[in-house]
């Protein structure tokens, strides 16, 4: 019984226990213990994180001539670690005050279902990550998509339901395209095991590889929410109840990236993918995937810019950053893939922290709509601090870990000499900075509303996970080496040259990065700024928010002296016209095509005289057949048949 | 109808009506004195028939000793190129707080502003005028200041005090015989 078995068995039993116990109040404590123990088990397997051999599970299944088996290698260990740690933080966040409020508003049953959905999600993700061959990958993949559907299904209101059904149709389309791809791989290479496929890939033709990569790409792309399929993710993740959004936003869409890395990078190996030339264009397959990633970095981020609800803004960022990771992975050299994989870790930390902060704001004020919020910094300072640290991470500004993975991807793009991709990535990042400031400004800064005067800080049970995540963000920001070890192990598990790194960052001949020095110098700068500010200048007095310059006008609480809606008006005058909902119209066109076809085929079933129709068709066919062949001249051949078997008569 | 015909037609018409007297001061100036009750009718006639479409101003004159206010409606005609000022007298009833008169807002829209002005400055309440509240003198809660019986100078002397501007250099001048001929507080127009 290897450690992997203990983990999978333990999580399965735990999920059964949680589902059974879900009505009682102790379910939140139980879930926290479950995830804690799961983390301990993962830590026991931490040899994988430093280049250990994959651990095989003793449970194998031999069905219809295929043997399915499950194993953990460094890449899946890396993803599993993020999943379980985020789940631990989410469960701590869910227990305590948030739970009581949710139970009053909805019901203990609904809360129990939420816990159950979370544990099922974690279980299905672990099964997917532990998959050893294509079939077990597909089984895990389906379990994950159905578990996340269950999570989205808990929110009862209409918008959430519409988003959930749109998600499940997209997920099913993804599953179908992957099933087709698996079937084709099986028929082309004769087996579903990674090792054999890798050998067989050598003598597959380019078109076959192109077809397979497109099908796998479409399948995993839908889950990751890359550009043509990005419409479902934002609404689905934003509408799940609070902690659900935290977990889903942070890690759920990254399963697509894991599967993509396993299939496209490990099995089909990027060099092979890059070799496929697209006729009449300079691009090859790898460029296309990279460009899909780049576009996904830009378009959703600028859609996020226009959102008027904090949860939707963050969910759209999730889609954007997913594209960033795809771009990172698609650059073939070790720095780019390291950047892409590390971005998964970084992104999970600060997206979870951001969603927790927004949920805390909703917990206290009841809304996440920008036009009803403002000025909460004095009421919820710790949540503000958490949000500032994580937006610095999301925007990728130095002291935080987001900067390291962004630096890696930029450095790779620079070395590779891809100017347009580099510019696209930068446009995406700048868009993030703009929309991220809009998030902080509209919720925490500006004038405080009358009704929010006595809002209190988020409760301790919600603050602890947030502060824990902040420590992780800052810690891995200053010492990225910790995460880079795991990333290097994951890289060589997938067959890419691991990145040369030390605790502070990366040394490169043409200019490396040492975060310890960079952060040190920055804090030296802040110290100088503080000295200049506090000691040179005189005493300053805090004043009331109405004591403000308003051109000689006397401010009162009747007139709201606050700028928050249509935040980037200047920019929107220019790019406002460019939002044409192109993809939404494409989607509607598809749906109307399907309903037209179904109308067409329904007419067939409504026709009044089917029998006559069939008879006429049959008669014509018969006439054609009778005329086309002549009766056999000699019927004699019939006779001898019977003699041959004469002996067969009964005795 | 060019302007001479209009003037001719108007003069003959007004002449027929008894209680109003018309004095045409010049080719482009007509003065009409009309009793208070029939003023709106006259304005309607002027606006409708006689092409006096523009009410340029309403001015008010305070006759405290006759116990009356005189309202003058200045109407201008683009065709006739002449200004007609309709004078009328309304009782002052200075015992109550406000004199009352009817608003001509329904005939001439700009009348609303002029009436509000007069309401603030003279304290004449125009019935059914749309904006009958303080606009200019929001900080003022004394009597309507333009009335003749309001002594501004007395009010100023009560509420404000003056700066005895007697700086150093002025004292030196006065010691050797110079100084200001008439002190500021003794100046009277």
């Amino acid at each position, binding site marked *: 019984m290897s450690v992997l078995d203990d983990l999978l068995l333990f999580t399965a039993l735990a999920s059964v226990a949680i589902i059974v116990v879900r009505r009682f109040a102790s379910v939140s404590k139980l879930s926290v213990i479950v995830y804690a123990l799961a983390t301990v088990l993962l830590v026991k397997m931490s040899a994988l994180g430093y280049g250990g051999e994959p651990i095989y599970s003793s449970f194998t299944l031999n069905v219809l001539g295929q043997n399915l088996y499950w194993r953990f290698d460094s890449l899946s260990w890396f993803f599993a670690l993020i999943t379980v740690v985020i789940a631990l933080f989410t469960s701590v966040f869910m227990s305590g005050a948030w739970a009581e409020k949710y139970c009053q508003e909805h019901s203990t049953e609904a809360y129990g279902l939420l816990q159950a959905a979370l544990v099922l999600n974690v279980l299905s993700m672990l099964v997917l990550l532990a998959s050893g061959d294509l079939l077990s990958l597909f089984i895990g993949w389906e379990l994950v998509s159905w578990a996340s559907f269950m999570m989205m299904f808990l929110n009862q209101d209409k918008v959430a339901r519409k988003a959930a059904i749109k998600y499940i149709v997209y997920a099913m389309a993804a599953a179908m395209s992957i099933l087709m791809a698996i079937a084709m791989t099986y028929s082309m290479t004769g087996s579903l095991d990674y090792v054999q496929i890798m050998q067989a890939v050598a003598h597959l033709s380019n078109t076959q590889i192109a077809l397979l990569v497109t099908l796998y790409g479409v399948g995993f792309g839908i889950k990751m929410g890359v550009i043509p399929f990005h419409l479902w993710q934002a609404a689905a993740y934003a509408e799940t109840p609070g902690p659900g959004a935290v977990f889903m936003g942070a890690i759920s869409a990254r399963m697509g990236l894991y599967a993509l890395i396993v299939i496209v990078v490990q099995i089909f190996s990027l060099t092979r993918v890059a070799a496929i030339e697209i006729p009449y264009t300079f691009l090859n397959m790898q460029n296309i995937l990279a460009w899909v990633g780049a576009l996904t970095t830009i378009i959703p981020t600028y859609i996020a810019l226009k959102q008027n609800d904090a949860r939707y803004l963050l969910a759209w960022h999730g889609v954007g950053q997913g594209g960033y990771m795809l771009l990172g992975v698609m650059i073939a050299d070790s720095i780019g893939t390291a950047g892409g994989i590390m971005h998964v870790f970084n992104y999970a930390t600060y997206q979870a922290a951001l969603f927790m902060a927004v949920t805390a704001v909703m917990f206290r004020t009841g809304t996440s709509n920008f036009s009803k919020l403002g*000025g909460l*910094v*004095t*009421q919820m*300072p*710790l949540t503000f601090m958490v949000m500032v640290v994580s937006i610095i991470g999301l925007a990728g500004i130095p002291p935080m870990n987001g900067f390291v993975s962004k630096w890696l991807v930029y450095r790779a793009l620079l070395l590779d000499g891809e100017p347009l991709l580099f510019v696209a990535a930068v446009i995406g990042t700048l868009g993030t900075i703009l929309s991220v400031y809009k998030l902080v400004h509209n919720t925490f800064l500006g004038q*405080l509303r009358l009704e929010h*005067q006595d809002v*209190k*800080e988020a*409760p*301790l049970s919600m603050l602890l996970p947030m502060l824990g995540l902040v420590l992780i963000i800052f810690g891995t920001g200053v010492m990225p080496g910790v995460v880079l070890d795991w990333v290097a192990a994951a890289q060589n598990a997938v067959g890419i040259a691991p990145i040369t790194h030390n605790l502070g960052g990366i040394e490169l001949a043409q200019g490396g990065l040492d975060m310890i020095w960079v952060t040190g110098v920055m804090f030296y700068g802040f110290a100088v700024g503080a000295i200049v500010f506090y000691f040179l200048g*005189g*005493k300053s*007095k*805090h*004043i*009331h*928010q*109405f*004591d*403000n*310059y308003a051109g*000689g006008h*006397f*401010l009162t609480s009747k007139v709201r002296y606050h700028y928050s809606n249509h935040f980037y008006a200047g920019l929107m005058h220019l790019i406002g016209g460019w939002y044409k909902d192109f993809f939404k119209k494409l989607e509607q066109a598809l749906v109307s095509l399907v309903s037209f076809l179904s109308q067409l085929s329904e007419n067939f079933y409504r026709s009044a005289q089917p029998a006559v129709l069939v008879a006429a068709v049959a008669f014509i066919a018969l006439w054609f057949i009778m005329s086309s062949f002549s009766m056999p001249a000699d019927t004699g051949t019939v006779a001898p048949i019977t003699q041959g078997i004469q002996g067969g008569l009964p005795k | 109808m060019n302007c001479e015909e209009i003037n001719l037609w108007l003069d003959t018409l007004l002449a027929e009506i008894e209680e109003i007297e018309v004095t045409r001061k010049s080719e482009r100036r007509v003065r009409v004195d009309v009793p208070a009750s029939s003023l709106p009718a006259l304005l309607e006639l002027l606006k409708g028939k006689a092409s006096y479409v523009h009410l340029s101003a309403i001015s008010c004159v305070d006759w405290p000793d006759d116990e009356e206010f005189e309202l003058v409606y200045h109407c201008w005609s683009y065709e006739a190129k002449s200004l007609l000022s309709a004078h009328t007298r309304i009782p002052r009833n200075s015992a109550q707080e406000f004199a009352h008169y009817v608003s001509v807002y329904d005939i001439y829209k700009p009348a609303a502003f002029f009436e509000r002005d007069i309401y603030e400055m003279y304290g004449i309440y125009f019935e059914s005028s749309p904006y009958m509240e303080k606009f200019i*003198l*929001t*900080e*003022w809660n*004394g009597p309507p*200041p333009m009335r003749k019986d309001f002594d*501004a*100078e007395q*009010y*100023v002397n009560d*509420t*404000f*005090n*003056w*700066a*005895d*501007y*007697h*700086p*150093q250099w002025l004292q030196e001048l006065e010691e050797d015989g110079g100084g200001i001929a008439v002190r*500021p507080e003794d100046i009277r127009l």
Partner: protein
Amino acid sequence: MSKIGNIPVNAQAGKKRTNPLAGVFDELVQFCQSRSMFMLHYCTGCGAIELPPAMTSRFDMERLGIQPMVTPRQADILLVTGYVSVKTLKRVILTYEQMQSPKYVIGICSCTVNGGMYWQSYATAKVLNEYLPVDVYIAGCMPRPEAVIEGMRRLMRNIEEGKGHAWKDYFQRYDYYLGNQQHLFGDDWQTPTDIIGEARHYGLETEQTYGEHTRILEQHQQPLEPHKMRIKF
């Protein structure tokens, strides 16, 4: 009758540093204060038209280190140009209180000195320094730019000689100023700036700061202490 020119102010009140050595440093700061003044001109009346020529190429105020600033927060000098009607005086007082000290007021045009040609009008405030401590008056029914610059240079000399402390008078004799203001605007007059709080914060209060006018203010003033950044679960 209020006297203009020599405002009784104890210059040492609210001083930060007590040791003599700091004197040298204060000298430098005082010199710089005189050499760099940010000007906010509140165009209450006709006097304002004289300031653009003072700023532009012919007279060039920047030679003296004077820059026009837009918000009272950044400004040092408040130029009250022209007659101050009662309505405008409310806004002038609000702007003055929003400025950060050391701040100076220059009353341009004789209307601010003693009522000017509107001395008879019921609507204008006659003497500016009843409501605000004024440093320099520039008489003239619209003084020419040279006169304005001369007034500025006079203020610079005052500051250099250490006589630029009129602003402390507003804190020290707040009750007197508040009384005049309430006399003009009525008892429910208040500004969003918490002058008494500021006086207490910078140690500029004297017994004359408080009086019956500040008591009237206390009764109906809405609470002005800022939302403190506090962590309360």
